[in-house]
């Protein structure tokens, strides 16, 4: 897949009139931060909400999006897949041939599975003609991790599209794990998958309490890991993270099967999916989730926005 990725300057968002704006109705207060702060303008504006866990700030978020003129739908995962693909296809189809469609997606409160649907839809449209997609993410203020880990119900590729494919299945797996602060979750996944090689991506550049919590939650893994295999990445600089991850994966796939396991900040999940596209079909992206058993937790925005601007269907060589 051809991709061109650049840093997104959030200050430029107000100057763009998008063909489509997609946001998420979730239960976290930060789900509406982007729209509140930037009031993006576009031909079509849609807010697609979860049909489960309508708690905490869910209704306030829904009301806000409705007041701001967003078409709001509460949708199951299957409905989300269908509706979002339709919205993207329609927005691309409406754009004249002498201009490239421009879409913006707020991934803050989307599930990783839903992010995967959107990235796949954009990539598929990008095979027909270049599509510009800006992805924004609103980091959360620090809140302490839960004392009890959530019950895991899913540990598999985030979607069939991101399952990847290998023509050398006897090669060892090379795991690239984004760390989060769920206790021992990363090492559990690694024990489950038994990769031959491991790299961990440690999130930094936010509240130091996060870093301490991530360190503590992954103490066994970090103690045993070769220091060379730990890569600290800056959450506010996702393009840098993409560059490092993509370089590693593209090299490693010559002799191993890359598998990306993005725990922790959702921006790393997006980056992983983009790296997977750039290294398709070898690199797969996995999801480890408690699904509806995940405890709903209030998260507030720090006030920062981070993002990347992606051009699907064109790479740096064009």
């Amino acid at each position, binding site marked *: 897949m051809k991709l061109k990725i650049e840093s997104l300057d959030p200050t430029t968002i107000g100057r763009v009139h998008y063909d489509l704006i997609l946001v998420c109705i979730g239960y976290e207060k930060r789900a509406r931060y982007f729209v509140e702060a930037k009031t993006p303008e576009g031909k079509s504006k849609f807010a697609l909400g979860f049909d489960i866990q309508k708690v905490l700030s869910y209704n306030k978020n829904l009301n806000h999006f409705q007041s701001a003129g967003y078409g709001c739908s509460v949708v199951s995962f299957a409905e989300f897949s269908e509706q979002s693909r339709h919205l993207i296809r329609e927005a691309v189809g409406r754009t004249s041939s002498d201009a490239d469609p421009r879409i913006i997606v707020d991934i803050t409160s989307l599930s990783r599975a839903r992010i995967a649907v959107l990235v796949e839809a954009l990539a598929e449209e990008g095979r027909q003609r270049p599509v510009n997609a800006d992805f924004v993410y609103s980091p959360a203020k620090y809140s302490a991790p839960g004392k*009890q*880990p959530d*019950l*895991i*119900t*899913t*540990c*598999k*590729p985030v979607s*069939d599209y991101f*399952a*990847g*494919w*290998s*023509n*050398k*299945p*006897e090669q060892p*797996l090379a795991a690239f794990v984004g760390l989060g602060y769920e206790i*021992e*979750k990363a*090492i*559990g*996944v690694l*024990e*489950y*998958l*038994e990769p031959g090689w491991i790299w961990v991506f440690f999130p930094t550049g936010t509240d130091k309490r996060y870093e301490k919590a991530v360190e503590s939650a992954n103490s*066994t893994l970090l*103690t*045993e890991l070769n220091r060379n295999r730990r890569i600290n990445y800056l959450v506010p600089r996702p393009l840098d993270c993409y560059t490092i991850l993509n370089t590693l994966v593209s090299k490693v796939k010559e002799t191993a*099967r890359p*598998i990306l396991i993005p725990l922790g900040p959702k921006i790393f999940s997006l980056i992983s999916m983009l790296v997977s596209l750039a290294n398709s*079909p070898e690199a*797969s992206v996995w999801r*480890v989730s408690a699904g509806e*058993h995940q405890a709903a937790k209030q998260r507030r925005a720090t006030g920062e926005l981070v993002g990347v601007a992606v051009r699907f269907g064109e790479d740096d060589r064009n």
Partner: protein
Amino acid sequence: MRAWNSPEKARVQNQINYTGVFVPFDRSWKEQLGALGRKLPAEDQEALGIAAFTTHVLRSFVSSLRQILDIDDESTGETVVGRSISRHQEVELTQSVANSWYLSPEVPTLSGLHLALTDRLSDIAELSSQASLLSEKDARNRLANETFLHLQFLAALSSGIERIENVIGELGQWALLFDELELAPTAIIDLIVRSLRSADPRFLFKLSLSPYTPNYEMTIESAMPGHDYDLLKLWYPNKEDSYKFCRGIVQQMIAGRDLEQRTVEDVFGRSVFEGETEVDSAKPTAGYHPGSAEHKRFSALAERDRSFNDYLVQHNINLDCMDQLSEPMKARVRKLAAVVTVRETFLSTISPNGEAKFRSRKNPTLYSGATVLFDASEGNPRLLIGLVDRLLDTRQDSGRVKRNRQATEIGFALARFRAYLKTIPTEKALVPIGGARGLLAFLDTIGKHFFDQVCGPEFNAEPALSFVVDSTTTDRIMDVLAQAMNAGAIIEVSGLGSTTVSGNLRGTRFRLAYLLATQHRLPLILGRAHSLREVMISSGVQRDLF
């Protein structure tokens, strides 16, 4: 075989009269096979999956073939196995096999053949993607017209081998080694199991499977236990059965660290769970002589624990004369030792109202010593080698590895194992136990019950440290047990039988994996058995699950 350095190498090599073809599976490949053709009808999806599997087997075969036809081991100058062939022969057999397998290698060599099969795996994925964009009828026609999709792995191998042997003569037997087969799609397992009844004497099959697969049975129509296959259990109900194997591995690792003259016990010490031996009993401070470590433990417990003291009185066991007991009494005392050791380590006092209070022991060296390492690994070479390798890095100048270091490393292994158990996806909401759900909560309930047996208010000389699955156990609990068994968290002790791969777990006796047992502060012994119903209901789990 080339990579293996062992004094046993020559002996073992002489016994191997086949060439192995290793066909691995793993979770990633499983998911990729599952995603292949997902948008197509089930029948077409299955066909693509089987085609990918067939190609995978043929690639593995060609890899093995390249190894046995490459006869000189450059590192040692030793000929391992071999057949020298000419370039002309290589071209001839490659072209012949390629015809049979519908391949067109760019270069008529074995490596060209291997590459063509690698490309075929890519082609299968592309074909799947293209077919997904067609109508159902067009997709079906597209797939039907691809002849290679309809190759059967065993027929293809037979045909390939026959063509090769026509050129270079007989090659002997081939052992198809399917690893982690429980991760393969059911259609593929079916295919392989049906092949077990193959009349082709050139093939041996080794299938590595999880111990329990509730949705799958080897039926009479497919293969008969004892006739078509022999079942080998790779777990050890009795831990001592693993010791010879474990000792051999660890001894070799010690020798590899320039510690040739040291035994496993020299480096790691003896485990407190082993009790006295004939050799030790000669020493004044060994065994149960007054002043020995065992004697001190027994005495310390008797002082703190009235119920243990009562037991000793009731059975006429004088601690100061334990070394002079009759043989039957010595045997009784030896049986107590593991329980006494654990109870003494963790029990602080029994309060006047009968409540047991415990000592806080963060990293007890109780779980250290050579045989504890063997027990914790359950004879799994990967786990054992990982443990021992890290420990040998920390050895002192004397060659010994400190006990607290061993206990710490076992703690790390335990943390990894528990994290793994938490990761196994639970698709159905499991039985809530004390507000918690999931496989680990279930196992922890069992562990806590056993701990109460050992360290409860009253001394118990024969605590229950294993459980039997009741006949009334519901399917919901059976699913959890199957998960636990396949994850290695519970170990079958008896009842599963030796002639079936899958079967009814009801009536089977299990113990906790010894690594998990360290979490629950248990002695690493088998103990008596309680029914699972008794274990769970005494812990507050609802009765209607049993």
